[in-house]
């Protein structure tokens, strides 16, 4: 297995009370899969994505990437893993407002992976072409529509040729056309051999998935 979570559980304590964000859940994904995480709002889809990608640490259970437990990773090693092997797409596109589109796409390279200005800019223009934004390279984020922004984020997620793409409601803020474009891109990546994990409640998005995992706070999640 490329990535797997065993009995993952996440609780928060707030005002002395324990809140269950994710009931114990097990999941395993491999290269070439496009897994859709579904479930009602508050069932813990985002929480599970964060645990699997190492952005958050589980209260119980273990995440394994290529059979190596993430709990044994140092901060630096977990960061390096995210940089090299993971790509992120969020519901609302997070971009740095003071950087151009091209600089935003290249952001992960300041933390590892591709280096050398020439190599980076070549890869960036290739990716912008791939997502259909070649002419926007020198624009700033505030000059782009939300559909375009989400494609910039998509390009950024791909820059270090990750093995796993995490997408949290990638179509949540998009109209049908733009949603379709982003979903096609995700599908394309999974066909090309990447592992894609996507949280969504969009029925259209689920159709692109190769597999679904339905989360329910009150029951163990089960694969449908």
């Amino acid at each position, binding site marked *: 297995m490329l990535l797997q979570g065993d009995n993952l559980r996440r609780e928060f304590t707030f005002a002395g009370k324990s809140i269950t964000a994710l009931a114990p859940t097990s999941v395993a994904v491999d290269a070439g899969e496009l897994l859709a995480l579904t479930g009602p709002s508050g069932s813990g889809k*985002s*929480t599970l994505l*964060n645990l699997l*990608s190492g*952005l*958050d640490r589980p209260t119980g259970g273990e995440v394994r990437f290529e059979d190596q437990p993430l709990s044994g990773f140092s*901060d*630096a090693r977990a*960061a*390096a893993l*995210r*940089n*090299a092997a993971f790509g*992120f797409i*969020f519901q609302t596109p*997070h971009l*740095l*407002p*003071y*950087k151009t589109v091209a600089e935003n796409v290249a*952001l*992960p390279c*300041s*933390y*590892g*992976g591709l280096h050398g200005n020439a190599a980076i800019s070549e890869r960036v223009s290739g990716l912008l072409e791939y997502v259909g934004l070649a002419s926007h390279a020198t624009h700033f984020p505030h000059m782009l529509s939300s559909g375009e922004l989400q494609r910039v984020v998509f390009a*950024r997620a791909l820059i*270090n040729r990750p093995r796993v793409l995490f997408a949290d409601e990638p179509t949540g803020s998009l109209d049908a056309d733009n949603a379709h474009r982003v979903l096609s891109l995700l599908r394309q990546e999974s066909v090309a051999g990447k592992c894609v994990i996507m949280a969504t409640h969009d029925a259209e998005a689920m159709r692109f998935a190769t597999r679904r995992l339905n989360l329910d706070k009150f029951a163990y999640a089960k694969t449908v």
Partner: protein
Amino acid sequence: MPKPFEILLDSRDAWSSLRRRPVRSSLSALGIAIGVVALIAMLSIGEGAKQVALQRISSLGIDTVRVESAPPLNAYAGIDVANLSLSLSVADAERISAWLGTRGTLGYFVRNDEQLVAAASRRALVTVVGASADWLAAEALEAAAGRLLLPSDDARQRRVCVLGARLAVTLAASIAMPVRAGNQLCSVVGVLRPKGRLLTEGTGLSALDFDNALIAPFRTAPIPRRGARDRVDGMLVRLRSDASAQVPGVAENLTVILGDARRDVTNYRVVVPYALLNEARDTQILFQLVMGAIAGLSLLVGGIGVMNVMLSNVAEQTREIGLRMAVGATRARIISLYLCHASLLCLAGGVVGLGLGVAAALLVQVYAGWAVAFSALGLSLGPLSAVIAGLVFGLHPALRAAALNPALALRES
């Protein structure tokens, strides 16, 4: 630890995000700038005072002890002060000279200020000095033309004189020319090399401009003695250069010898330039403590302002921090980013403060007449202390940023 090129990347990002908030950034940098202004002004004024003190001491001679007569500081009741031989005298000088032996040279003199001297049709108001031949040697005077005074001039009561460089020009005097001083004539035997003034300010000694003085042998100098032919106005002891460490001891003994001879009525003043050095150092240290405290306080206040601004920057950029962590930033790199941010902010303030501080010091020089001097070390200390303030006060916000949980940071709206 981030590598140098990574720190460079972080400073570039920090600089752009600093420029996004020009007003906030400049206001917080201003606090640091004020601290640096105080620091630069302190250092340059202190450095100026030090150089003045050093000039003064080298003008007076580090290996000299100077004695001048002065109104009595203390007199026992019952002692008829008027009956004491109140002035210093040749006898005092000879006693000290005998004690001194080969350790150094002692010269003595009488003087009269603002005396009219004339040569042919030219005249000038000058200081006339009647000096022992050793005095010229002890003051390290040199002849540009002719000769200096000799012991025999005094012994044989020759009516000769030596002119200061500027006086020689004023009087258009040349060797062998007669010069009238008071109601007597003396003939010029030498002209001195330009030497300038004795820098006596703040020492209690009388000023003396060598370039504008007429120096004649002690006994024949045209100076009104009011009956006291042996009266001496001042003495100068210059120790041999290998004995200069004995300056304090010599000064002490000299005081004892003079005190014994006049039943401890202190009607003279002993000035030890060597001790002035310590005095100057003490006042300088005091000045630097006061100004340093001011500079330190304003840097502290400025630093707290920077910390405050950095905390709100971190709070505002929570999502950006989460994003950077998601794409692979380690906690060390987040710390580096915000330390760069804070130190660039402070450095900007430091550079502005450096400019303003130099300007302030120059204004002090022009309007208050204080000496200022700039040293490369002092100037670089300004921006350096600003950067250090940035690192110190940026550390807490940076640690706070690095401690964020990326998943929660990304949820922030």
